[in-house]
């Protein structure tokens, strides 16, 4: 049969990446002082699976490399080698390397041989450590070493079995003759339980007859009386004569699976069948005697083999306990593993939904159908006295619709654990590189948020957590000097609050040095001399581009690049950031995000005959224009004097080329909007309601339009555009009277 194995590769890659994630998080979880055997089992199993798959699918580079990891992990879980930070590091870099190899193979690219040999060397160094340690005297461990060393294992096992086979044969003087003889005599005395191993003597005989001409003599002497007959026991034994050119090893291979469940004696047939039978007959008396001897000899050998195996097993006390222990260990994992599965697939746009959520939806649709039929019934036979009924029906419809909407939104909700997955590694690597000790905890992993929000929050979280290790947590010495434990603590927690998801990152580090930060900001001209700021305002400066309180930039802190990006990303999700800090006690960063991006609270307003929506989070104030506060700027724009600042005025009808109802600013309405601390005054004809709107994509069937974030459908079925404040701000920088798209020259100038 020819089976194209490459068709399974995609699945292999997917599960291998998942396996690597599991290995990574497991390794990060390991506490060298108290290694959790169950975690080691999980990590081992992941490596083992990758190796197995790689071997099967012909990826020898992967299986060879994974074999090293597996060997090391096997020793760790067996307690043969101590879990040290170095060993964990070597394994982590091996995980990275393996991931790189898999990615390269998947992309049909060359393997990075440099990275491979580096990772391999790191592993080998760790493997060598144990070898030295073993000389210190752990005989059991040493014995099991060849078995553990894979490639040799199989050959070793074969040699062992043929060795045990040849022992009784060697005892017979005719052994040599047998090799060139016409076949084999086989004594097969299965133990009573043979059938309960699923082995069937008939199958064995069939396999033997494939090797040559087989004669079967059945001995039923030990068969008990019929009433005592246990149909599940095998009480028969057989003498078999096989005329064949096959070697003893080939014959023995047929019995490979039943070696331990039967006495198997294989002796060469003499030159011809008749003398052999005669021999057998003649030896009838001595045979019973010699048989037990041979049998016991065999048994001894087998026992020896077993003893060796037992020694191996003893050397890995954990291995025997594995069956029970692993079950418990993995029970807590499925959610996590599932999460990783999702994470691995996040590049595709599909989403895995709990059937439970779908069942809820189906129930709701059921209710909706009932409401609908009730309403249509009222409609058919309507009379004035049924008005109340109609109102009830409509109220029910409204409730059904709202619930249905909420449930549909919930389908897009995924646990935040997807976003958490990279964090432990970040903490591990960063703290190691900086010589810090950090205990990292994650809570609220099952807190759900919109899939899109989740994907976009990953990078900011990584950045903030890394920042906490770098800027927050002090060196162990510094901590101890301050009377704190040498090991710092960072925790991340997510929970729901109102319509938002709150993520808190807390460290018990040195806190933010308010004066130093303010000093830097003053030096950079961000804060004027003499200007007093609240704590919140000062702490918010850490998100300002170009400010870093670190005296020396490190690989991890960079130069203040990044924190501003964090803020921008969170703002783009309509979220907010809040920093609290106490000197010497630590810093808490709180992120608040909307649960979903598909609904927003909007301020509706009108310009000309069109309704527009501006996200409520961007609205600072709505006011009536005081003509005295309007000034022109070089004839190119207008500004409004508002809260001691000059805010550019945007006449939407000009930007959007529509006909407004009102041209005169003075006495008109203006909405002050903000994006990243840039303010705009949007001049509108009329302010309407504030309401929740469902965001619809304009791009799905059309294109992205500058200044427009999307659209929504109003109660009357018409479409209203949602403004993109950031886009408007950008446009307004070209001068509010400029056309929507800045001219090239001007843009160059701006750049």
């Amino acid at each position: 049969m020819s089976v194209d194995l490459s068709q399974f590769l995609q699945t292999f890659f997917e599960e291998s990446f998942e396996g690597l994630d599991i290995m990574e998080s497991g390794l990060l979880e390991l506490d060298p002082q108290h290694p959790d055997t169950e975690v080691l089992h999980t990590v081992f199993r992941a490596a083992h699976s990758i190796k197995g798959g790689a071997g099967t699918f012909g990826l020898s580079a992967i299986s060879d490399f994974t074999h090293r990891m597996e060997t090391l992990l096997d020793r760790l879980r067996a307690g043969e080698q101590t879990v040290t930070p170095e060993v964990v590091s070597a394994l982590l870099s091996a995980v990275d390397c393996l991931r790189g190899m898999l990615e390269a193979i998947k992309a049909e690219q060359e393997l990075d041989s440099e990275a491979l040999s580096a990772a391999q060397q790191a592993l080998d160094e760790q493997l060598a450590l144990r070898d030295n340690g073993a000389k210190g005297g752990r005989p059991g461990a040493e014995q099991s070493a060849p078995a553990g060393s894979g490639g040799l294992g199989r050959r070793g096992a074969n040699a062992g079995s043929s060795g045990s086979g040849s022992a009784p044969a060697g005892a017979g003087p005719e052994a040599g003759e047998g090799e060139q003889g016409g076949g084999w005599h086989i004594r097969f005395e299965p133990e009573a339980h043979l059938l309960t191993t699923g082995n069937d003597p008939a199958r064995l005989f069939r396999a033997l007859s494939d090797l040559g001409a087989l004669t079967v003599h059945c001995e039923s002497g030990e068969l008990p009386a019929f009433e005592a007959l246990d149909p599940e026991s095998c009480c028969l034994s057989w003498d078999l004569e096989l005329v064949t050119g096959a070697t003893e090893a080939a014959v023995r291979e047929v019995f490979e699976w039943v070696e331990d469940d039967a006495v198997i004696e294989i002796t060469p047939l003499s030159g011809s069948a008749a003398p052999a039978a005669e021999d057998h007959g003649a030896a009838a008396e001595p045979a019973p005697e010699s048989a037990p001897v041979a049998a016991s000899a065999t048994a001894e050998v087998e026992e020896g083999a077993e003893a060796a195996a037992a020694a191996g097993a003893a050397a890995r006390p954990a291995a025997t306990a594995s069956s029970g222990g692993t079950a418990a260990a993995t029970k807590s994992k499925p959610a996590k593993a599932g999460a990783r599965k999702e994470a691995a697939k996040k590049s595709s746009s599909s989403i895995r939904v709990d059937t439970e959520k779908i069942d809820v939806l189906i129930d709701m649709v059921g209710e909706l159908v009932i409401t609908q039929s009730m309403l249509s019934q009222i409609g058919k036979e309507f009379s004035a006295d049924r008005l109340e009924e109609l109102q009830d029906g409509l109220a029910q419809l409204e409730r059904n619709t709202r619930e249905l909407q909420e449930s549909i939104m919930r389908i897009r909700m995924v646990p935040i654990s997807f976003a958490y997955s990279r964090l432990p590694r970040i903490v591990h690597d960063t703290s190691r590189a900086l010589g810090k000790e950090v205990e990292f905890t994650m809570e609220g992993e099952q807190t759900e948020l919109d899939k899109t929000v989740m994907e976009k929050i990953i990078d900011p979280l990584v950045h903030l957590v890394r920042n906490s290790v770098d800027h927050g947590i002090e060196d162990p010495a510094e901590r101890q000097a301050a009377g704190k434990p040498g090991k710092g603590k960072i925790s991340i927690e997510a929970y729901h609050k109102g319509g938002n998801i709150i993520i808190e990152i807390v460290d018990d580090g040195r806190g933010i040095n308010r004066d130093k930060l303010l000093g830097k900001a003053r030096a950079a001209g961000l804060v004027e001399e003499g200007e007093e700021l609240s704590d919140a305002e000062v702490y918010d400066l850490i998100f300002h581009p170009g400010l870093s309180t670190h005296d020396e930039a490190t690989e991890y802190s960079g130069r203040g690049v990044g924190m501003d990006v964090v803020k921008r990303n969170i703002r783009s999700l309509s979220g907010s950031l809040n920093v609290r800090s106490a000197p010497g006690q630590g810093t808490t960063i709180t992120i608040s995000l909307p649960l979903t991006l598909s609904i927003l609270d909007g301020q509706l307003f009108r310009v000309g005959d069109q309704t527009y929506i501006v996200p409520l989070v961007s609205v600072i104030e709505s006011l009536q224009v005081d003509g005295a506060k309007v000034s022109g700027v070089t004839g190119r724009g207008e500004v409004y004097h508002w809260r001691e600042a000059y805010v550019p005025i945007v006449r939407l009808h000009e930007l959007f080329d529509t006909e407004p109802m009102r041209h005169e600013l003075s006495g008109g309405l203006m909405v002050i909007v903000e994006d990243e601390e840039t303010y705009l005054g949007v001049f509108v004809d009329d302010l309407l309601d504030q309401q929740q709107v469902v965001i619809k994509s304009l791009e799905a069937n059309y294109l992205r339009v500058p200044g427009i974030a999307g659209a929504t459908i109003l109660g009357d079925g018409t479409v209203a555009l949602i403004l993109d404040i950031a886009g408007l701000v950008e446009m307004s920088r070209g001068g509010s009277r400029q056309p929507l798209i800045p001219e090239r020259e001007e843009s160059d100038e701006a750049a």
Partner: protein
Amino acid sequence: MVKILAVDDSASMRQMVTYTLKQGGYEVTEAVDGADALAKAKGGQFDLVITDVNMPKMDGITLVRELRALPAFKFTPILLLTTESAPEKKQEGKQAGATGWLVKPFDPDQLINTIKKVVN
């Protein structure tokens, strides 16, 4: 048709085993770990079980032991997929009641040949 229960936590191995066996004319039911396999075994009859050893929730050895305790699986051939690096698993498996084993990595032909050894 001969019904086979194929147990492996690795999706790619499962796919490969299932595909090969189906090509070979067998009817295949998949299980993702020992616990899943045990549940499926209790819900149906199989002519052969082929299982991986290292699996979460319930490993292959435990599965063999549990299956052998079921009357319907007392004599059913059960094959273990062992690896060359863990020969002791063969013994452990045998003691638990496994019929035999197949050493990974194996190719589809080896798989079919081994299956043919235990089922007609």
